[in-house]
C-alpha cells in the first residue's frame, strides 16, 4: 500500500505535534489545579502569588512580594543579586543562605534561588524577612500560606436569631465579598481577598436545628466558612457587604420540620400559628409554605439608577418601597425575602442566582421613574437565545417556561392596582434579570401619582401601591402554587 504508507508518513508529524500539544495542555492544567498560592494582606491591598517548589522547599519571588508595598528594583551584579526597596539596598547570593538585608546580616532557612534574573526566597523566611523590610509586625499562617502585615485583619461575629425560620447573622468589621457555593447540607463561603482572621474556636455551634454549626478553616491562601444545616441554606448581603444573613430555604424549613409530631407551618411574627388540620400530611404543609416571594429593590451601592431629582436616587426609592412591601406581604402571612436590605451593590447575575437558588413562587423586581404617572408592570421580553439542553436551561431565556405564570401574576397585580384607582399599564420589557428567573417574574416601575415627583417617595402613595401589589400576589397564590 504505497499511497497509504506515504499518507501515514505525511500525517505522522501532525499527529505527534497534536499529541505533544495535548500532553503540554494536560500538564499545564494539572499544574494549575495543584498550584500553591500565597496571599498577602496589608492595610491597603491584598494580593496572591504563586509558590514554587524546589528540592522540597517552597519559594516565592521577592520582587513580586515587595512590589505592591513600595518602590522596588533588582539587578544581578556579578555573583550577587541586589535589591533596592524604598531606597535601601539588600544583597542575596544564589545558592547561599547568608544575605544582607537593609544593611544587616540575615540568614535564610534555605538557599537563595536565582532563575532568569528573578530572586526567590524560602517561604518560611517571610515573617522575619518582611519584618526586616517593612519594620512593622507581620503575622504568617504558614500552613495556609496567609501573611498579615501590620494590623490588617477582618474579624467577624456569628449569631443565631431565633426567628421563624431562624437566621444566622454574620457581622464583619469590613465589607466582604466571598465566593458562595451551596452543596447538600452545607453553604461554603470562600474569602480570597479579605484578611479574615480565625475566630477563637474553629467550630462555632449554634442552638438551632436548622443551622447547627459553622466551621472556619484556611488553606492555600484563602479562608473558608462552611455553615452546615440539614436543609438548603442561602445567603444575602446587607449593610454595605458587612453583614451576611444565612437563612434556610422556606420550603426546606417545612421539610425539616415535617418529622415533628405536629407539623407546623412557619409563619411570620405577628400572626398566630395555624393549627394543623387533623389528617394534614407533611406534603400538604410543604405545598402551603412554598408560596414564597422574592422582592428585589433594583440598583444599589455604586449603581444609583435614575436620578429622579437632585436629591432622590432610584436606588433609595426602590429600597424604601421594598421594605414597605415586605411588611405588607408578611402581614398577610406571605414569606418574603428582600434581596438587599441596605445600600449594597449587586450584579444582575447575582440577583438572578440568589432568586433561583431560593425557588420562590414569584419574583418582584422594583424600579422607580420620574417620567409618566402611575405604575407600569413588565414581564420579560425574551431575547433570541439558545435552546435549553437536557436539564440545563439557556441563561438568557430561562424565563421561557414561566411566561404564563408571569402573565397571570401581572394581570392580578394590574387588577388590584386598578381597583384602588392607581393608573396602571402592562408591558413587555427587555429588562434583566427578568429573563433569567425560573419562577413567575414581574417588574414594577413606580412613577409619581399624577406626575407629582415629590409624591413618589410619600408613605401614603407607597402604602397604596404596596397594598395593591400584596393583594395581587395573594390573589394568585393557588395558581402560582399549582404551577410550581
Amino acid at each position, binding site marked *: 500500500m504505497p499511497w497509504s504508507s506515504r499518507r501515514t508518513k505525511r500525517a505522522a508529524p501532525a499527529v505527534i505535534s497534536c499529541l505533544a500539544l495535548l500532553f503540554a495542555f494536560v500538564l499545564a492544567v494539572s499544574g494549575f489545579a495543584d498550584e500553591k498560592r500565597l496571599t498577602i494582606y496589608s492595610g491597603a491591598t491584598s494580593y496572591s502569588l504563586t509558590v514554587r517548589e524546589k528540592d522540597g522547599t517552597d519559594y516565592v519571588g521577592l520582587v513580586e512580594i515587595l512590589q505592591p508595598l513600595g518602590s522596588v528594583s533588582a539587578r544581578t551584579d556579578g555573583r550577587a543579586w541586589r535589591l533596592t526597596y524604598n531606597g535601601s539596598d539588600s544583597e542575596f547570593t544564589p545558592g547561599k543562605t547568608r544575605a544582607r538585608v537593609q544593611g544587616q546580616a540575615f540568614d535564610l532557612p534555605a538557599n537563595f534561588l536565582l532563575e532568569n534574573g528573578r530572586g526567590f526566597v524560602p517561604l518560611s523566611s517571610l515573617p522575619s524577612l518582611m519584618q526586616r523590610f517593612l519594620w512593622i509586625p507581620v503575622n504568617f499562617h504558614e500552613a495556609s500560606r496567609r501573611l498579615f502585615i501590620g494590623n490588617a485583619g477582618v474579624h467577624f461575629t456569628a449569631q443565631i436569631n431565633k426567628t421563624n425560620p431562624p437566621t444566622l447573622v454574620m457581622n464583619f468589621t469590613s465589607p466582604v465579598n466571598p465566593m458562595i457555593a451551596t452543596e447538600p447540607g452545607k453553604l461554603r463561603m470562600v474569602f480570597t481577598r479579605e484578611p479574615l482572621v480565625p475566630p477563637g474556636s474553629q467550630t462555632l455551634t449554634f442552638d438551632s436545628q436548622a443551622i447547627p454549626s459553622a466551621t472556619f478553616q484556611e488553606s492555600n491562601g484563602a479562608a473558608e466558612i462552611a455553615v452546615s444545616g440539614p436543609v438548603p441554606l442561602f445567603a444575602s448581603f446587607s449593610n454595605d457587604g458587612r453583614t451576611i444573613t444565612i437563612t434556610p430555604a422556606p420550603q426546606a424549613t417545612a421539610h425539616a420540620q415535617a418529622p415533628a409530631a405536629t407539623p407546623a407551618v412557619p409563619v411570620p411574627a405577628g400572626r398566630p400559628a395555624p393549627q394543623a388540620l387533623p389528617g394534614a400530611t407533611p406534603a400538604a404543609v410543604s405545598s402551603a409554605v412554598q408560596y414564597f416571594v422574592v422582592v428585589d429593590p433594583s*440598583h444599589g451601592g455604586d*449603581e444609583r*439608577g*435614575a*436620578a429622579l431629582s437632585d436629591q432622590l436616587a*432610584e436606588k433609595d426609592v426602590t429600597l424604601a418601597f421594598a421594605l414597605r412591601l415586605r411588611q405588607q406581604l408578611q402581614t398577610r402571612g406571605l414569606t418574603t425575602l428582600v434581596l438587599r436590605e441596605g445600600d449594597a451593590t449587586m450584579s*444582575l447575575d447575582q440577583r438572578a442566582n440568589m432568586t433561583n437558588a431560593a425557588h420562590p413562587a414569584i419574583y418582584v423586581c422594583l*424600579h422607580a*421613574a*420620574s*417620567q*409618566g404617572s402611575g405604575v*407600569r408592570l*413588565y414581564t420579560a*421580553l*425574551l*431575547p*433570541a*437565545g439558545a435552546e435549553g439542553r437536557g436539564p440545563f436551561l439557556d441563561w*438568557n431565556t430561562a424565563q421561557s417556561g414561566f411566561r404564563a405564570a408571569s402573565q397571570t401574576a401581572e394581570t392580578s397585580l394590574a387588577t388590584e392596582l386598578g381597583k384602588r384607582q392607581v393608573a396602571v*399599564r*402592562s*408591558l*413587555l*420589557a*427587555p*429588562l*434583566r434579570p427578568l*429573563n433569567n428567573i425560573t419562577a413567575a417574574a414581574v*417588574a414594577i*416601575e413606580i412613577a409619581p401619582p399624577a406626575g407629582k415627583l415629590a409624591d413618589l417617595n410619600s408613605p401614603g402613595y407607597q402604602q397604596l401601591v404596596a397594598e395593591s401589589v400584596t393583594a395581587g400576589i395573594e390573589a394568585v397564590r393557588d395558581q402560582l402554587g399549582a404551577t410550581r
Partner: protein
Amino acid sequence: MIPRHLVIGIAAMLAVALGMSFYAWRMRGRVTQAETPAEYAHPVAAPVQGPTEQVTLYVAYDDPGVLRAQSASIPLPAGRQERAQELLRALLGLYLDKSSSHPLGPGAELRDVYLVDPGLAVIDVNDAFADGHRSGVLVEELTVASLVQTLATGIPGINRVQILVGGRERETLAGHADLSCVYDVAALGQMVAELQ
C-alpha cells in the same frame, strides 16, 4: 591611520542620518499642524444622493409613553447597508431636534449599522448616545423599540438586531434596557404593539 574609503563611508552615512532626521522632524511638524480640533473630530456623513423615498419611522413619544408609526420622505441610497444607516440617521435627527418628543442627550449619534449575516443587523451608536440617555425602564424601552422596529420595517429580511455602544457590547442602555442580548424582531413586534 583610518583608511580613506572608511572615512568617506562614515561621512556619507552621517549625512544620510542627518538628512533623515531633518525630514522626520519636518513630517512631525506637519502632522501636528494637521490634527483636527476635538470639536470637529466626529466623522461627517457624506451627503446622501438618490431619489427620495417614503419610509416609516417608529417615533417614541414620552408624554403618553407610546411609539407611533410616522411616514417620512428621505433620500435613500441604493445599498442595503447605506439605506439602513440613513433610516436610523433620519430617526435620530427627529430625536435631536429641539422640539423632540423623545429627546436624546447632546452629541448622540449613530456610528454605523452592519448587516452581518443573513437576518442579523448590528446598530452601533456612540458613547454619548448611551451616557446622555435618560434612565428608566419605559424611556429606554422606547428608544430600543424605536431603533429596532424602524430598521426591521425599512430593511426587509432583518430578523435579529444587536445594539452596540461605541463598538462594544454594553450591559444596559442607561441602567435598564438590556443591550447584552440579540433582539428577536418577531418577539419585539409584540412589545411594539403594546407600546402603540
